[in-house]
Structures are given as structure tokens and as C-alpha cells.
């Protein structure tokens, strides 16, 4: 099984997100994460979908998405040659006064930002790879994780090497 990032340029029209997600459901594919936003050209939106499957399935997903009339371009990004990040917010419990400082230290080690620091909890925002997010999540659980919200991955492929 492999993890794949699909970058899908679609027309910026209502109902297309529904059609794309419906395709995943009806073809028995799996959405690991999804993020959607407008592109540099307001006529189009970009959906970034991560999925897990064997190579054959992922090839099929790309082909089926490509076949959709509303998709303008479907690309499977090269994971090793792409910048991919996800934004996540953690609401972490503050059990005792020292926790506050510990959480602050942890956050700065991960280049995360502190928001809404209260006596009982702190909201930490970070933009990172899924791997880094999981690592931080494990550490945050030591204090107690009250809530977590993630945006899903967004990604762009790097330009070809310059020579």
C-alpha cells in the first residue's frame, strides 16, 4: 500500500466537490484527507486529496478522476519532490502551572504558534507534514489533548532542478 497525493484542478462551480467525493465512494476508493481552495485563476479550484491504496488502485483513481468532465487536470504528485503541509490546531490541557511552559517549549521546537493561552488549556497552531503532526500529537497527549482540528494536506510540486 502506498500513500499518494493527488492534485486536481477543477472548474470553480457548485457541485463539483460532491461529484469528486461521490466518485471515491462509488468506486470504493478511500479519501485520507481533502482540502479545496481557489487557484491563481479564479475560474478554477484546486483539490488536494491524499489517498492510500495499491499502485493499481491509485492508477485507477487518477484515470477515473481524469475521465470526469469537470476536472481540468489531475496529477499524482511525486511525494519526494513536492512541498506538502497540513495546518492543525491542538487544544492542549494545562494541568499544572509548569505545563504551560513545557507546552510553549514544545511548540517552539516544532515552530508552532501559541494561541489563546488560558489557565486550563492552550491552543497550538502548526503547519507541518503529517509525520511531524503525528509526532507532536503523541507528545501533546502527555498533557491531555482536548480537541484537535486538521485541514487536510495541500501541496505543490517543486520545479525541475536548475542546472
Amino acid at each position, binding site marked *: 500500500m502506498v500513500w499518494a497525493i493527488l492534485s486536481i484542478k*477543477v*472548474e470553480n462551480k457548485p*457541485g463539483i466537490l*460532491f*461529484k469528486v467525493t*461521490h*466518485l471515491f465512494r*462509488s468506486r470504493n476508493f478511500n479519501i485520507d484527507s481533502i482540502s479545496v481552495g481557489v487557484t491563481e485563476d479564479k475560474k478554477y479550484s484546486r483539490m488536494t486529496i491524499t489517498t492510500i491504496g495499491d499502485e*493499481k488502485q491509485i*492508477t*485507477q483513481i487518477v*484515470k*477515473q478522476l*481524469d*475521465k*470526469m*468532465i*469537470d*476536472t*481540468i487536470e489531475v496529477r499524482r504528485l511525486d511525494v519526494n519532490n513536492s512541498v506538502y503541509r497540513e495546518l492543525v490546531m491542538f487544544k492542549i490541557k494545562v494541568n499544572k502551572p509548569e505545563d504551560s511552559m513545557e507546552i510553549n517549549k514544545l511548540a517552539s521546537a516544532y515552530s508552532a504558534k501559541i494561541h489563546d493561552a488560558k489557565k486550563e488549556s492552550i491552543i497550538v497552531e502548526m503547519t507541518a507534514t503529517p509525520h511531524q503532526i503525528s509526532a507532536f500529537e503523541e507528545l501533546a497527549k502527555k498533557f491531555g489533548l482536548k480537541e484537535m482540528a486538521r485541514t487536510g494536506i495541500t501541496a505543490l510540486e517543486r520545479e525541475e532542478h536548475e542546472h
Partner: protein
Amino acid sequence: MTDKNKMENMIGATALMKSLEKEGVKEVFGLPGGANLPMYDELGKSNIRHILVRHEQSAAHMADGFGRVSRKPGVCFATSGPGATNLLTGIATAQADSAPMVAVTGQVPVAMIGKDAFQESDIIGMANPALKYSYQPRTPEEIPTMVKQGFYIAETGRPGPVLLDIPKDVQQNEGKFTFPDEVRVPGYHPWADPDITNTTRAVELLLSAQKPIILAGGGVIISSAFAELQSIAELLMIPVVTTFKGKGAFPENHPLSLGPIGMHGHAEANKLMTEADCVLAIGTRFSDRSVGTFAEFEKNLKIIHMDVDPAEIGKNQTTSVAVVGDVRASLRIFGKMLMDKAVRTSDDNPWLKHVKEVKQYWRENLKIHPGEMGAAKILRKLRELLPNESIVTTEVGQHQMWASLFFDAIHPGTFFSSTGLGTMGWGFPAAIGAKTARPDVPVVDIAGDGSFNMTENSLATAVLEDLPVIVFLINNYSLGMVAQWQRTFYDRRMVGVDLKKCPDYVKLAESYGAQGLRAQSMDELDSAIKTALKSDVATVIDIPIDPEEDVLPFVAPGTGLKDMILPS
């Protein structure tokens, strides 16, 4: 783009009719209701013929039958809510068999959408996975472009159904219209350029095979690649099997024809398919009903796959060479390459000798039902009396598979069936749609009683619209295929399959003003078919048969073609 001088004032419904006329639409199958009244009002004023149905499902099947025969989208109309949901089975059937169709539904007014209005249904949401594309105009001005695009999408590439869901106020409101002569659909690329590299590889692979076979699918019929297929088969002396959907892609009386493979394929076709070392598969999606288990099918087999739909390549089978593009164009290039190489195969190679022996053996030795009115005998009688250019549709069930086994499709593209979705009730309305497209040839629905029962009220349409189709009703008073599976796999525990001689189909036909005939002997059948062919009114020939007759050979689900069960 917009030429202000050419703008015309009219209401949306008029623009719809005008757009349909510009697409060459001559007939619409449908049923009116509250939300499509404005379009019906304009339909009445137009030159388009309305063919009234008694249930919207039949309208969709008629449009489907029309579309498959004419290769132009058939058009069906239904109102919102239940009218639209009644179309759904027909839309899904067309999608499963890649049939061109444009369905037009009324919708509640824009301001009422989402308010759970009377007869409101989110038909676009419901039908989405069964559609090639859909439109819901929010202003009347959008209609002409949507119709133009809809027809273009429905009939090009791999054909399929397109839905136009038009809110009532959008039909009623006035607008300023222009009618485009051409449309662009940015994300739609129905044709790939000819793939010379892979066609070259395909030629080399096929020529290097010791035991080659051609598998022709429905794509050959859709793209009318009959002549191209036949010339390649004859040039290389390669035997041809078809999928069930591809029945009629290659003349079944041709010496190289082995008939359909699959769950109820011909014994010789299934046998030789499993012996082949290389298959040229054209316009097929390798359905489980055709190939059995995928892994078993591709064992020791090199697959060359030609298809218009790139998403079909590698979906079910591992392909050695894939040629994406219109199969007719691909076959032309393929044929030309063979000509350039001056390849010609003689017919005295060991594979072809073996093929001939196997074919002859099964043609002579396949056991058929001993009774006078056995399925094989009555279908061979029909073939004997029916002109070759006649169009045949089928319902879904045992009779359908008997038709596959015992009724040879000889003229190209004269045999149609609901092969993908397997929709009972499809054959009769589809035959009416086919007759609308081809009034010059006899059209016969090879039917079973269970299926015919589902849409028999289309007799009203056949009679009143003067579309004299023939229903060849192979009547075993049961849901025969289910009964066969219960006998085979459930130790004869028969549940819910006995239809108990109800209704009487002769009386039923007569009550609609159609002709009802019963044939209980071969002589009666002979005369009934002749009478029906001469009749100017629709005819139902009720042919009672032995309810215990099974369809054999049979490849049980989850097994391979080599595990075919033969009649004992």
C-alpha cells in the same frame, strides 16, 4: 462570441425545443407532469413527435433503444420528483451499457429548491453516479449551450446519458437567446490521437502468438467497426469470440465466429478462450459476466486492449499492450500496418485446425432440451423466419441467455440487450425505441414473462403510436433464472419465483388493442411468427415452455471459464 443582432426573445421552454430541433431531434419519449408543463406546451407547438409512455422508466428505455440503434442520443422527458426518479433505472441502464441519451426533467422553481417542495427531488444528486454529465440551468439563457454540450457529451467518446434538470421558472421565464453552433467543454477530451507506437507493438504481439483470438466487445458496435474487425480477422485467420454485449459485432454465421464467451457463453467460445495465448480485446471492459474470475482469465494470456476509455485499461485485467482511442480508428491503423507488412495467415495452421474441430464438435454435440418447444428449437425457428436485418432486443433472464446461445446475430449491430445493469423490463420499450429509429425493419423483443411483465404497459405506446414490434415471449411462468439458481445452488428450495400463469398474455395483448397469439407447437410458432411479421399492429407471441429448462453451459459466479458446467 455573442452576436447581439442574432439574439432572440423567447421563454426557456421555447429555447429548449428550438435547441432540440437544432440537434436533429425528431421524437421525444415522455410523460408530462406539473413541473414540465411549460416544455410540454412548447413541445405541442413544435415539429417534434411526442411518444407518450405510461411509466417514465419506459421512456428512458425507449430513448436508450433509439440511441443504441441510431447512435444518436434518444431523448426522454419526465416531470420532477417521482417522474424523475422513475427515469433513474433507465438512466443507469444506459450508463452501464454506454448508450447515448439526453434526459430532460422538470424541476421545482429555483426559489423552491431545497425547501422540500411538492414533487421535489434532487435528481442530479441521485442520478450522479449513473450519468455521464448533468446540467441544471438557473437562467433560461443557459439552456441552448447546455443542450448543445449535452448532446456532444452524450454521443461522443464513450457514449452515455446526460441529464438536463430544468426548474419550472427557468422554462417559463423570458430571455434573450443565442444558439451556439459549436461548443467547447474544457475538461472533456473524448478522442485520443491514434497511438501509432502501441498499435505497432500490438501488431507485433498478435503476430507472435501461437494461439491468438479476438474478443470483440460492445465498443465495436458503438463505433461501427464491423468491416475493420472482419477484415483483420480474415486476413490473419484469427477466430472471433465476443462478449455478450459484443454479440452482433461479428457475423455469427461466419466460419471464424465462435459466439459469445462468458457465464452463458458458447461452449466452444469459452473453451477456446481459455486455450488462447494472446487476445486482441476490442471495446470491452472485461466484465465478470464475460471473463469469470479476473485472475483465472489472464493466467497464461497476453492481453492487447483497445478501448476509447483510458480508465478501462487495467481496471479489471492486466494488459500487455493498450491502445487507447476510438476502436474503429485504431483497427484501421492496425489493418493498414498488417497490409504494409503484407501479412496473411494461411488457414492450415494447427491452432485454426483445432479451433475448427472444437467448434464443430460443440455445434454437433451440445445437448439441448429434448421437448418440441425447447428454447434452442424455438429460437432457431425465429432466426429462420426473421430477416437478417431485423433488430432484436431482449429482456433479462433465461430467455436472454438462450438468445445469446441459440439466436445468431448475423447483420452487424442488430442485437441489443441490457447487459451491464441487467434491467428486467428493458427489452420491450427498447424495441419500441428501436422501431422508432428503424421503422423499415422488423423489431423483435425476445422476452421472458417475468421481465415483460415489468413494462408491458408499453403495449399502449406500441399500439397508439403505431409501432408494431413483436414480443417473442418465452413463457415459463416463472422468474426462470432465479429459479435455475435456486435449483442449482439452493437445493431446489424455490422461493418467490412462481408467477402462476398470471396474467394471460394473449388476453393482456388484446386488451391493449395489440395482437395476442399463442404457440404451443412448432407449427403454431411458425405461423404465429409469419402472422406477426405481416401485422401492422404490435404482436405478443406467447410461447409456453418447460419451466424446468435450464440455461447451459453455465460458468458459476466466482469461477473461471474453464470450470464451465455443461448439459449432462
